[in-house]
């Protein structure tokens, strides 16, 4: 049981990663009753140990490939009266008719059929024998009859002479078989049953021709295609007429079942690929796979190197020690100020996030929903101020920091939040603008105040964008090196007050030439810091695109 489910899982997995799967669906509408399938399987299982492997393989192939849609068996199943003995008759019918289908597309199957046909015939007779002995004997005689039927000769009049003998032989056998089996089914369907057999023969020919007009060895070479198709439509019309006459409910479904030209229907909207399309797809895949490698290689190298226990200080130095792989992480926590950097960064980032979110939402709301004097000019002013390069303020920040005489982290909160306010306000304002004002007005008509409208309607609607602003203002302080590095005076006491990025930099760059560096510890710290930030970033990816385009793009 478990192996079967495992196999199914494996198959579904293969299906999933296959780019073409999911584009096609099964075309056939009807199925044989599961009991038939089951008993055929049982018969095959029994056969397995009685015949040679080669023979069994042939039987299996013939059954699998030749008769997929069960033209005749299905018809018999639907039209039989006598339910008690159905199963044996149907099985024998199925096995008997399978041996009479000429494999036009796949000629190599003919060799296999030579092996399989006697076996199939004997089983068919056996199955029928259990139902009625006389009938089984009759069937046995039919199987041994290799003459060409008169009915078949009349199918195409004079043109029949042009058709090769094998085809005529196969058709004759089928004709005889259907006539034989029609004795089991209801009176009104008997005529149709024979016609369906004919239909099957013609249909196989036409589909083979349509699928490959030039190479196929079909009777279209000797008989015009139009003639064939007119015969086919004739039979279909007969089916329809009889169905209407006796009010047969399954007839419509059966007609669609037998008239599908291929066993699978194309579900995808896209047209099938051309050759150039295939090549360009291949190139595209190669390109993006290559680029993925380019992106992932350094990142994976970072992670792998951080777990290198054989080296101590510099990246790429020759291995000198043999320490456990986690040693750099351990030393990061025990020998460096990583804990205090993390604490400082979290402190700065959280406060910055809080201030920025509060400031930007209120500012953006004011600018988006109110009209007041000097609105345009203030937008312009703030926007222009934002464009001034950050370098312009560095010296002044340094002086201000010396005056203020506060901790680095406190000062950083003020600077970061002030800097982030101007830019993010306009992204958020753009997002607020995209929320229709009608919503506000509807709320106001229902008696909501401005503040309530803001809190209960605009903020929930703009939540993705606000989350994005919050995320950015949270990540920002983790990545900034310049400002904390500038503010610190490089003493060990002030190194303790740095934030993450600037702190980790002290592990890579020694201020004095020839000083010791801890690049492996740096990698450990970088990995620890980057993973949560990267995950947050990727989770926010969905909103990133809308955030980038809504505020800025016209």
């Amino acid at each position, binding site marked *: 049981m478990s192996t079967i489910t495992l196999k199914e899982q494996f198959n*579904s997995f293969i299906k999933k990663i296959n780019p073409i799967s*999911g584009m096609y*669906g099964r075309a056939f509408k009807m199925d044989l009753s599961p009991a038939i399938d089951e008993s055929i399987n049982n018969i095959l299982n029994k056969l397995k140990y009685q015949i040679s492997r080669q023979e069994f393989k042939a039987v299996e192939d013939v059954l699998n490939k030749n008769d997929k849609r069960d033209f005749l068996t299905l018809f018999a199943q639907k039209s039989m009266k006598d339910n008690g003995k159905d199963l044996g008759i149907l099985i024998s019918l199925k096995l008997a008719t399978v041996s009479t289908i000429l494999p036009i597309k796949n000629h190599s199957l003919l060799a296999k059929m030579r092996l399989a046909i006697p076996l199939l015939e004997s089983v068919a007779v056996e199955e029928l024998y259990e139902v009625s002995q006389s009938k089984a004997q009759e069937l046995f005689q039919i199987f041994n009859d290799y003459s060409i039927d008169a009915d078949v000769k009349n199918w195409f009049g004079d043109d029949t002479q042009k058709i090769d003998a094998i085809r005529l032989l196969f058709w004759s056998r089928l004709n005889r078989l259907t006539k034989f089996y029609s004795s089991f089914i209801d009176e009104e369907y008997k005529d149709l049953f024979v016609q369906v057999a004919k239909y099957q023969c013609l249909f196989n020919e036409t589909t083979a021709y349509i699928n490959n007009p030039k190479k196929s060895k079909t009777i279209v070479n000797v008989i015009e295609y139009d003639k064939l198709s007119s015969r086919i439509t004739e039979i279909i019309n007969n089916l329809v007429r009889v169905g209407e006459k006796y009010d047969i409910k399954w007839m419509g479904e059966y007609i669609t079942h037998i008239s599908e030209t291929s066993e699978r229907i194309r*579900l995808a909207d896209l047209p099938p*690929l051309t050759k150039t399309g295939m090549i360009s797809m291949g190139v*595209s895949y190669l390109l993006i796979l290559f*680029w993925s490698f380019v992106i992932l290689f*350094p990142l994976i*190298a*970072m992670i792998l*190197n951080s777990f290198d226990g054989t080296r101590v200080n510099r*990246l*790429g*130095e020759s291995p000198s020690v043999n320490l456990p792989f986690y040693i750099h992480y351990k030393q990061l926590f025990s020998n460096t100020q990583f804990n205090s950097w993390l604490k400082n960064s979290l402190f700065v980032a959280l406060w910055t996030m809080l201030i920025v979110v509060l*400031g930007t939402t209120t*500012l953006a709301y*004011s600018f*988006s929903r*109110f009209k*007041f004097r000097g*609105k*345009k000019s203030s*937008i312009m002013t703030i*926007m222009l*101020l934002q*464009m*001034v*390069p950050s*370098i*312009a*303020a560095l*010296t*002044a920040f340094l002086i201000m920091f*010396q*005056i203020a005489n506060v901790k680095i982290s406190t000062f950083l909160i003020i*600077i970061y*939040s002030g*800097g982030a306010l101007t830019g993010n*306000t306009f992204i958020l*304002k753009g997002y607020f603008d995209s929320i229709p004002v009608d919503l506000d007005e509807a709320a106001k008509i229902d008696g909501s*105040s*401005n503040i309530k409208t803001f809190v209960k309607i605009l903020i929930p609607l703009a939540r993705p964008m606000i989350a994005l602003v919050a995320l950015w203002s949270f990540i920002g302080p983790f*990545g*900034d090196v310049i400002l904390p590095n500038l503010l610190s005076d490089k003493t060990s006491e002030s190194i303790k007050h740095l934030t993450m*990025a600037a702190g980790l930099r002290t592990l*890579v760059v020694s201020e004095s030439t020839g000083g010791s560096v801890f690049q492996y510890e740096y990698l450990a710290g970088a*990995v620890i*810091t*980057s993973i949560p*930030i*990267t995950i947050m*970033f990727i989770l926010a*990816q969905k909103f*990133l*695109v809308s955030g*980038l*385009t809504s505020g*800025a*793009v*016209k």
Partner: protein
Amino acid sequence: MSLTKNDYELAKKINFKSRKDAINTSIKSLKFNNKKELAIYLNNIVAKINTVEAHIEDEKHKLGAIKKQNSLQLKQELQTYKNSLQKNIVQQKLEQLQERQKTEIQLAKLTIFDVDELEQKLNELNIFFDSEKQKLESEISNSDEQNHVKQIKEKYSLELEQEYAIGKQNYLNKVRNLKEELLELKHQKSRMVVEYKSIKKNKIRLFRSEKKSANTEAKNAIRELKTRSIYINAFGDPVEDTNVNAAEVSTKFGIQFQEFYENLSVYFTYKFLGEYLRTDQFSSAENESFLKIETIYNIKDELLSTRDIDSVLSKSFESNGQTMLVRKLLKMSKIKSVIKMTISSLQIQSLEISHFRKNIINAIASKVGSIHYDLLYELQPSFDNELKKIEYAVRADHEEKIILKTIKTHLDQTQFSTANKDHVAINNEDFVRSFDQKLVDIKSEYNIEKTRIIKDYNLGNFSKSSRNNSLKLAKFNMRSQIKELKLSNPEKQYSATLSYFKLELNREIKKENKVMFSKIDDAQRRIPTKCVKGHKWYALAASILLPGLGQILNKQYIKGFLLLIVTGFIAGLVMPIVFGAITFKGEGIFGLFHLSPEINVDGDIFYLDARFRIIEAVVSWLLLLISVAIYIFIARDSYYTGLARENGSRPKNSRDLRTYMTNQGLPLLLSTPAFFIILLVVVTPLITTIMLGFTNYGRGNLPPGNSLDWVGWKNFKAIFTGGYAESFGYVSSWTLIWTTTITIGILILGSTLAIIIDNPRIKGKALFSTVFILPWAVPAFATILFFSSAFDNGGLINKFLGTTTNYKLSTNWTKSILIMIQLWLGHSYMFLLMLGVKKSISSDFYEAASIDGASKFMQTLKITAPIILAQIAPLLIGQIVFNFNNYGIIWMFNDGGPQPLKVYMGSPGSTDIIISLIFKLSTSGTNNRVALASAFTMFVSVFVVGVSAIGFLRTKSFREGGQ
């Protein structure tokens, strides 16, 4: 020439004015003289009082001296006694005894040789001396020395007390006399003042009445003139008749008018009692309105006299038989309703009055042509009363409504609960019994549905997305069914209905409140107010004197109070900072004028830190500007409110303030904190940098310790001439290459990747796009520093490739590696952006193009590329600016290195861009030229802001923002 109308008027006016002036001057002189006399007199009295008080003080001193002397005597006597105490004598004796003991023991030691004997002798001696000692000690303890002291003290204290008592008695007597004198003087003074005031009052009243009479006379004269002018208008100008008497004119037309006018004012003063009413002078309509008022008064009296309403009401309520609470409420409501009815009658009456008044004014207006100001003035006193009446009526009505609603809700609630309680209890049991079963049913139904869908999918009957959607739908259906089931709990429904009653009541009360306030506000708007003429000037003056006072004068108390707090804050904290009283190493706004004052400590000269002074001055100037703006705003506001009040409108109250603050004023309230943060963090540093550009801050005279000076445009000149121009030129070429290569590179990379990923045939889109944004998602410092250390000599890259190239010493290698790293880092942004834009392009374009036979390549070229380029053009400009400013990577990778062969001024490295050179100049220790860097920053900023502004002006948010 005949006397024209204007001449006549002018003459009258002059006459009136001169009389008025005379009266005013006489009042002034009277005031002055009386004041002078009184002042002299009062001065005398005060002098006397002072002398008396001085006397009292002297006496106090004397008494103190006596006390002091006595205590001194006591002390001296005690000292002498102590000296002669027995204790000392005993002690001397003891000492003598000890000496004797010593000598005797020595003697014994010398004389006696037998040990035992000596011991015995010594013991004897010891015992003897000990007994002697004890005797002496007992003597000390037994002596009645302390009794002695006590006696002496008692003796002295008796004497002292006697003496002191006498002294005190004397003192008290004297003081009492003096105090009586003082009191008399004070009485005199107050009497004088009262007398003076009464005199003044009388006189002023006299003059005022005279003034008034003069005024009325003048008014009469003017009125006469007016009647005359009306006459002239009506009957034409009497050309020849120069002696036309105004009185004569008034007999024809004016008397009627004048008398009517007088009677009208009398009428209003007597509260519309039609005693002096002369019905024959009014039209029939006016008569009717007068009569109406009388009837209203009658009805009101009747209403007030009856108590029947109460009983009627109570009967009607008691018949229902409610709980105690309801009864209490009913009682209240009865009282309220009575009040309300009387009040409403008053209200009706006042409305009638106003209607009537309107009629009269219309009548007068039709006769005179325009409404006379004085007439309105006479009518005004009733306005405020009317407003009060309306307000009271509205409030009473409101309260009654609320009470009735509460009662109704209560009744509904009780009715509902009595009707449904049992029903709910029975139903609830059933529900609880069947709940679990139903829940299981719903869940099993869902499971069946789920398996069916999955089976269908596995058969290949439908696609994956439709499977997911149907699963989602099935889940949603199940959840909604469960929710519905839970809500169908009768108990829950019952309690929900009950709580709904409360909610409804609250909502109703809120609504009523709103209606009440809107009615009151409406009445306030409708009924004019009165105030002193020229009020706006008083308000303005008050607000100029003390911002916020004007608002209080305008009866805007809450606003005034808040503004006073703001004023206090500004005056108490901001102004001291601005003018340098509270400083942080600076001098307020004056810091700009003396950049580095020198201070002399012990012969050494130090300079105050100019940087701190500049930055504090910048902040101070900004604060000063804001304070002045607030000051002007407050003054302006009080002036305009005063003006509005003069025109008869009521000042805005606290409700109006609240409405303003939650509507138009909200952005002001919301953006103020953010505004201040921006001012502090963005504007202040910017101005400071500009200031520093005009100083000589740099190597050689770095503060602290050195002086800074203003040097004008010298730094700007240095950029374009001399050694620095050369080094900036050297840096600029690499900056240009850097910016353009990166921008174009990421544009190509990002758009290629985006177009590939956007292809619907590509599988694993989510995975690939996640990988492609990784360089952006991973913090840049982490990767840059990793690359930097990996490219070290003997680093990871050399190890990996097996080479020994020193990348960081080769200019070309460093440049190309920098570009590659930045491409690696920056393309993710462009990729994501392109993907978003590409998705937003309608597929109709492509369909139309493919129908017309365009190939995929042509579609990309003619549809995708133009649309994307047009859309991301502003962002591309942003990218250019970003890369221009991106000195972080250059600094982190190799600090601008390697050094070029030729040494330029400021020692720029061969990979330094303009901004990183500025960074070096302003932060490095050895090449510090902050002033020059600031000047150059300004120059670059103008360029950068200009370029970015072009991009910004194209954006949607700007163009929509201004509307």
